[in-house]
C-alpha cells in the first residue's frame, strides 16, 4: 500500500473511533458536571465535580440506584448461568449427536430470538400477578431466558462444531463412556466457547428494559435500566440529568471492561452464531 493510501485508511479508522466513542465521552463528561454546570451548553464541564456520583452512591438517589445495581447483577448472572448450562447440553447434542429434531431445535431458537418481547410481556404481566412472581427475581430470570437461551444455543453450537471430535472418539476407544468422554475431553475444549457465549448472553440480559419496567414495581427486583427511567433530581424542581449520567457511566463500565478484555472472542461469537451457525 502506498503511503497516501495508508494515511487515508488511517483517517477512516480515526473517524470510526470517534463515531463509536463520542456519545460515551459525552455522557462521561455530563456526569462530571456540577448541577449548576449542566446547562452550560458545551460538551465539556467547566470544572470536574463528583457531586453526581455522590448522589447515586450516598445521596438521595442511592435508594433507587444501589438496589437496582444489585438486582441487575444478580438477575443477569443467574439468567446467564442457567441459559449457558441448558444451551451447553443442547449445543453438544446438536453439534455432535445424530438425532431427529436438530433442525427443529435450531429453528425454534431462531423464532424465539426474533420474537417481539412485548408480546411476551403482556400475558406474563397478568400471570405473574396471579401466581406471585410479579416484582421478584425469578419473575425476571424466567423471561430473561427467552432473550439469552436462543442466542446461547446458536453461538455455542457454532463453537462446538469446530471442536476436534476425534479426541472424543479416541477417549471412547480407550474405554471411556459417552458421558465420560463428554465431561473429561470435550468440556475443557469447549470451555472458551461457553465462556464467550456467557459474555454475549450477559450483554443481552444486561440490556433488557421492557421486562424490567413491566414486571417490577419496587426496588425488590427492579434492574438498573428500568431504575434509570425513574430517577428524579435532588429536589422536585431539579432535572435528574446529572444522576442519570453518573448511573449510566457506572453500568457501562462492566460491559466496556468485558469488551476490552475479550474483544476477539466476542466478535468470533457474534459472527459465528449469526453467519455460520
Amino acid at each position, binding site marked *: 500500500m502506498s503511503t497516501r493510501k495508508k494515511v487515508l*485508511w488511517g483517517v*477512516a*479508522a480515526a473517524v470510526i*473511533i470517534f463515531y*463509536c466513542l463520542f*456519545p*460515551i465521552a*459525552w*455522557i462521561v463528561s455530563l456526569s462530571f458536571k456540577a448541577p449548576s454546570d*449542566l*446547562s452550560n*451548553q*458545551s460538551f465539556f464541564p467547566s470544572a470536574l465535580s463528583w457531586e453526581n456520583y455522590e448522589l447515586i452512591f450516598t445521596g438521595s438517589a442511592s435508594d433507587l440506584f444501589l438496589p437496582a445495581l444489585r438486582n441487575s447483577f444478580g438477575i443477569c448472572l443467574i439468567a446467564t448461568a442457567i441459559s449457558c448450562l*441448558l444451551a451447553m*447440553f*443442547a449445543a453438544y*447434542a446438536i453439534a*455432535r449427536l*445424530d438425532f*431427529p*429434531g436438530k433442525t427443529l431445535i435450531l429453528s*425454534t431458537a*431462531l423464532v*424465539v430470538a*426474533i*420474537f*417481539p418481547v*412485548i*408480546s*411476551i*410481556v*403482556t*400475558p406474563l404481566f*397478568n*400471570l405473574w400477578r396471579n401466581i406471585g412472581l410479579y416484582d421478584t427475581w425469578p419473575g425476571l430470570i424466567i*423471561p430473561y*431466558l*427467552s432473550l439469552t437461551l436462543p442466542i446461547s444455543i446458536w453461538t455455542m453450537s457454532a463453537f462446538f462444531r469446530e471442536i476436534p471430535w476425534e479426541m472424543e472418539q479416541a477417549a471412547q476407544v480407550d474405554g471411556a463412556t*459417552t458421558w465420560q468422554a463428554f465431561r473429561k475431553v470435550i468440556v475443557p475444549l469447549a470451555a472458551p466457547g461457553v465462556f464467550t457465549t456467557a459474555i454475549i448472553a450477559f450483554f443481552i440480559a444486561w*440490556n433488557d*428494559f*421492557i421486562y424490567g*419496567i*413491566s414486571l417490577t414495581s419496587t426496588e425488590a427486583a427492579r434492574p438498573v*435500566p428500568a431504575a*434509570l*427511567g425513574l430517577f428524579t433530581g435532588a429536589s422536585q424542581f431539579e432535572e435528574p*440529568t446529572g444522576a*442519570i449520567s453518573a448511573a449510566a457511566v457506572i*453500568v*457501562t463500565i462492566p*460491559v466496556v471492561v*468485558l*469488551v476490552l478484555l475479550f*474483544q476477539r472472542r466476542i466478535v468470533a461469537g*457474534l*459472527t459465528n452464531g449469526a*453467519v*455460520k*451457525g
Partner: protein
Amino acid sequence: MSTTTLPPTKKTEPVSAPKGGISDRARSERKLGWLLAGPAFAVMLLVTAYPIAQATYESLFDYRLTDPDNRSFTGLNNYWVILTDTLWWQSIGVTAFITAVTVAVELVLGFGLALVMVKALRALRPVLRAVILIPYAVITVVSAFAWQFAFDINSGFVNSSFAWIPGVAADTDWFGDRWTALLVICLAEIWKTTPFISLLLLAGLAQVPEVLQEAAKVDGATRWQRLWRVTIPNMKAAIMVALLFRTLDAFRVFDSIFIMTNGANGTESVSFLAYRQTIARLEIGLGSAVSVLLFLAVVLIAFVFIKLFKVDLAQARGE
C-alpha cells in the same frame, strides 16, 4: 448483469452417522440427543409459546384489570377496534419509518465500517474491533439518554455547537416536533446497532474468495466493478442475514422511544402502543390483541424475507 461466484463445494457426511437400519447405538444416540437438548427446547417453548397462546386467548375478551369482574367474551372485536383506529396505523407508520431508515443507513454505513476494518493497518485492527463493540455492548437506555441529553434544549451541546447549520438554533426543540424527534431516535438506533451489522458484513467479506478478486483484477475490472460484481454477489448470504436480523430487531423498537419522547408527538411505535395499553392502562384484552398483531407482523416480515428474497440460512452458515 453477470456475477461471479464459485461453484458450491460438496460437504462430506459426518462419519458418526451410519445410514439405514436403526442400530442400538443409533437409538441410544437419539435418546441422549433429546435428553440433552430437551430441557433447553422445553424452556424456550415455555417462555414464548405459552405466553403468545395466552395472549391470543386474552385478546378475545373485553378485560381490564381495573374492572376485572366485567370480563366478557367479545370475539374478534378487539382486533376490529384496533384495526379501525388511526392510532394503530400511525404506530405502524412510525415503526415502518424507523425500520426502513435505520436499516438502510446501517447497511451502507456498516459496509463502510467493514471495509475499513479489512483495509486498516494490522496494528489498528484490535483497536477498531474493541471500539466497534462498545456501541453494541452499551445498554440501549444509556445510549438513548446520551443522545437525548445531547439534543436537549437545556443540557445539550448540539444546539450551541451546530448553530451554523440552517434550521438549528439555540431554542430548537428537537423533541417537540414529530419528525425531528424521529430523526434523533433514528440517530441513536443507528449509532447503537451499526456495529453489529458491520461485524456480520465483515464475516461475509472474509468469505469472498481472494482468487475471484485477483481474476477480476487481471481481467481489467475497475474497483467499482469488482465491488458490485464480485464482492457483493459473493457475500449476498451474509448481507441478507444481517438485513433480516436487523429489520426484525428494528421493528421491535421501544427503549429509545420510551426514554426520549415517551411516545409523545406521534412517535409511538407498535411495541410502545402494546406496552401503553397493557402495562399503563391495564387494558389486558386490547393490549394482548396489539401484541398478537405485532407478532403476526414480525412473522410476516420473516416469511417475506425467507420466501421472497430467498434468505438461505443454511447457505449463510456455510453448509
